[in-house]
């Protein structure tokens, strides 16, 4: 990977420096929103950015074993942001957790910034995948879970965040059916459901996963305790989906 990555990086903005830079302590939602506010220029996606904020924070703050000290360790948990649209909340959480300096948030979307309107894993420390085109994260997460298992790494959890509208993409359904049939129990999907899918999901999104043998939980995407309980629920032998419902995007 090294050589290939280097070749790519040569024609792209320099990868952001890893590490926290000047310390800024973020302990609550208001602090995160302050960081989000440092980024401008992505107005179109701002509702999407905010819909992911609480779930992302609970994951990174209380659930995932991934931090600036283990970003390259094979045993780390993986979080894949599939819904790359509206990544401000994601960048804010990564900065708050010290993956890169908070100061980088000011450059969001600028020519030389590593922080684009869709994340690029070769530029953003802590980003496991580059995303933007919808429907790629879940299949990549399936492959990641398979790769860890094939190497005997049964500890790390693999999480992927998708949106309810992103779930329209058929590639997700290929992955959901396969992972359920395969019993890929280190795979976790977080669906941020802000009712933005054009034709909706009659009967709910969780039913699509349950039908393929997944463990499911549907919770209030703003309630940190509900999110935490759903994220940490045991699901032996089965992949797990958490559907986090937030206020409708178009209300």
């Amino acid at each position, binding site marked *: *990977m*090294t*050589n*290939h*990555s280097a*070749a*790519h990086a040569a024609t792209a903005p320099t990868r952001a420096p890893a590490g926290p830079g000047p310390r800024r302590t973020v302990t609550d939602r208001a602090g995160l929103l302050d960081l989000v506010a440092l980024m401008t220029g992505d107005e179109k996606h701002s509702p999407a950015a905010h819909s992911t904020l609480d779930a992302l924070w609970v994951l990174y703050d209380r659930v995932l074993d991934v931090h600036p000290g283990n970003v390259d360790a*094979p045993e780390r948990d993986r979080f894949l942001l599939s819904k790359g649209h509206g990544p401000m909340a994601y960048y804010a959480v990564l900065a708050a957790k010290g993956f890169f300096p908070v100061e980088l948030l000011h450059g969001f979307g600028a020519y030389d910034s590593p922080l684009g309107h869709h994340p*690029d*894993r*070769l530029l953003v420390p802590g980003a*496991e*995948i*580059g995303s933007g*085109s919808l*429907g*790629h994260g*879940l*299949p*990549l*997460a*399936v*492959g*990641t*879970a*398979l*790769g*860890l*298992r*094939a*190497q005997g*790494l049964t500890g790390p959890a693999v999480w992927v965040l998708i949106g309810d509208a992103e779930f329209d993409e*058929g*590639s997700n359904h*290929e*992955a959901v*059916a*396969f992972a359920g049939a395969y019993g890929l129990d280190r795979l976790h999907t977080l669906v941020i459901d802000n009712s933005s899918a054009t034709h909706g999901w009659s009967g709910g999104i969780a039913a699509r996963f349950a039908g393929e043998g997944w463990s499911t939980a549907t919770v209030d995407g703003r309630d940190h305790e509900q999110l935490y309980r759903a994220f940490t629920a045991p699901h032996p032998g089965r992949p797990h989906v958490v559907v986090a419902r937030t206020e409708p995007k178009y209300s």
Partner: protein
Amino acid sequence: MREQFGATVTELLEHDPRTALVLADIGTAQFPDAARDHPDRVVNVGIREQLLIGVAGGLALTGMRPIAHTFASFLVERPFEQVKLDLVHQGVGAVLVSAAGSYDWPAGGRTHMSPGDVALLDTLPGWHVHVPGHPAEADLLLRHAVAAADTLQYVRLSAHQNAERQPVVPGRFLTVRQGSRLAGVVLAVGPMLDAVLEATETLDVTVLYAATVRPFDTVGLRAALGDRADVVLVEPYLAGTSERAAHRALEGRPHRVLGLGVPVAEHRHYGSISEHLAAYGLDAAGLHAAIASYLW
């Protein structure tokens, strides 16, 4: 060649714990032992080609060396955005091994023909493309492709093959027949070699053989030129696919390039490989006519 693929990759899976094979139902019969012995590294995702490539990308993200295989139509064309994003854009490597190519199953019709696969990969950076003309070459090129850690490798297997193996070196064109200093050059790619040799038997031409077409062996092509830089490319996929690479290789010299191969127009006939090659002008008679009139 597909049998060789089964034997070679089974052996690689046995000896290199980093390798993993991803299938989408097609080709599973070639790997009974590997699937039994390495269930975590031989994964059949079912008839799900977007997932085939996505899984390959995910495996590579964890440090594995994925080998993904199905027919070219379903490996390159159908999940092309996955090839672009789940492999290239993520900055990871993989080995894609296709079968059926352009015309291997003519009775199967257009749905199972992918003459544009190499041209599509030309729109993306970093791909190495191998087109073996014999099972023994497939064995060598597969081993080379898998061993080239973290690079993007495409190996295009075909039922169409040459009678003899050539002593190929990955990435290099091979001089198979040397013409005079006045001769033009014919570059035969993979399975096209036998027909090219027969077609040019009575002509003064230099025949080069390519089992690797990307990167394009610029040095090899230029070294084969005599006093004139007139080149005919004979490719078993879309005609003209390598024309741009040839023009670039010949930059700075007055030159001419003719690209022969599978026509872009749909050919709505069934039948056999040889009937299709004849219809495309890629049998010895058709090639002789095209080459003789272009180089003389």
